[in-house]
């Protein structure tokens, strides 16, 4: 196994274990930390894919900015540990109906994963070989503002709408 593969397995494992820890343990603050660890794993994978820009942006935006807000919210809401016994009665998602739905979703997801993995021609034949690699910041910018202009602008409007919505919801009624 070459050093690249070793790194791939390492970062992949980091990303997966982090993601598992997000849902597997009960303390929400630890979940946020685990998610950050998972993002670092993803960022390492991007570096291996020779796109350092995407890797750094992943850290700046997700691990740096968004997760700070997550942590902020978790702390301000003073979310306590999710103890099983209390939540069994109180939380609707833990009742039998939603649990069955969740199980069905999990099975569907598993089927989809198997389908996707068996369709892959082989590891290593990825985006890089079928089209020119978007490596440098200049290329990313050019592609973003030409080929993907529409998607880019639509995303911006979506985020703007979300922002306006949040402000409207959070505004105090003046009565």
């Amino acid at each position, binding site marked *: 196994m070459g050093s690249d593969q070793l790194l791939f397995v390492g970062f992949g494992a980091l990303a997966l274990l982090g993601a598992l820890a997000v849902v597997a343990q009960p303390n929400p*603050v*630890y979940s946020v*930390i685990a998610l*950050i660890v998972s993002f670092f794993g993803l960022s390492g994978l991007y570096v291996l894919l020779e796109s*350092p*820009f995407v890797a*750094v*942006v992943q*850290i*700046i935006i997700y*691990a*740096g*900015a968004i997760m*700070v*807000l997550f*942590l*902020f919210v978790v*702390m*301000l809401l003073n979310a306590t540990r999710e103890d099983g016994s209390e939540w069994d009665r109180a939380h609707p998602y833990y009742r039998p109906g939603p649990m069955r739905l969740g199980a069905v979703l999990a099975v569907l997801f598993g089927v989809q994963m198997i389908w996707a993995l068996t369709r892959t021609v082989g590891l290593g034949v990825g985006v890089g070989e079928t089209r020119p690699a978007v490596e*440098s*910041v200049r290329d990313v910018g050019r592609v973003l503002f030409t080929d993907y202009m529409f998607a880019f602008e639509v995303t911006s409007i979506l985020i703007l709408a979300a922002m306006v919505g949040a402000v409207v919801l959070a505004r105090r009624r003046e009565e």
Partner: protein
Amino acid sequence: MLDAQILAYAVLVLVVFFALQISAAVMVYAERKVAAGMQQRLGPYLVGPRGLLQPIADIVKLFFKEELRPKAADWFLFSLAPIISVAAAFVAFAPVPFGAATTFFGLLDEPLPLQIADVNVAVLVIFAVASMGVYGIILAGWASNSKYSLLGGLRSAAQMVSYELAFGMALATIVLMAGSLSLQDIVANQSGTWFGFLPQWYIFVQPVGFLVFWIAGIAETNRAPFDFPEAEQELVAGYHTEYSSMRFAMFFMAEYINMVTVSAVVVNLFLGGWHGPWLPESLGWIWFLVKLSVLLFIYLWLRWTLPRFRYDQLMAFGWKVLLPVATVNLLLTAAGVIYFGL
């Protein structure tokens, strides 16, 4: 396999690592002496000549202090937080170049760049790592399970998120001018002079960008007048209220190293890095140290001159003054680069 080049690189890494630690000690001494001078006191003078050994006495004292663990603290995160802070501070310095490539007076066959990691997105890497440092502070505040710590941590999070935007915008103007994200290229673009005497530093083309970046940088490092996370009159000591002994020292080391890193980045982005008159290129690191020292002195000067903002003033200044100014500056610069080819 151990050739001279790798050995020299390893030595360089060690030198930078220890230099950063020593810089923290030097800054502690300088801070106390400068503060004393500005308040017409003597400052430390008992330990060693002119009190020069005072930082060592401080460190020894901190080593022997008892380490207190608050009963209600989340012990894992409580111990992790200072480690995150100090690790982020060290890593952030890695992509900062501090001198031209040198063979150390013919000692090496090939010139060795005075930089730990020459990343082609260096500017962004520093930005990313610096934004990790905030976790140390927030987690310290939360894990201590104390109201002062929590308030300090939350303030720090709000402050850093607010000022990061202006910080990034000011950074982007320089990236536009240089057309590169690599600090080596940015510094290389600032060599030479205009009209034979004015150095081609970006501070002369981008004075507004420089001011925005420097102010946001001071806010990012939580220094006065932006030292809200540890505002002692309101929050006892803010996020590190519950810390003692070496864990407390780690927070302080992180703060001083962050000051050094921000100043070093400002030197590279706006003050021409290691370029300067009179000295040959290979001794450029002397210029770098001189510029760095001046900026660090300004840090101390500001702390003992300006009173702390009020919290709402801090937020209003960040969002309503600094960010719009940085945005307009970025747009003007972009227009200048496109239409006039600056």
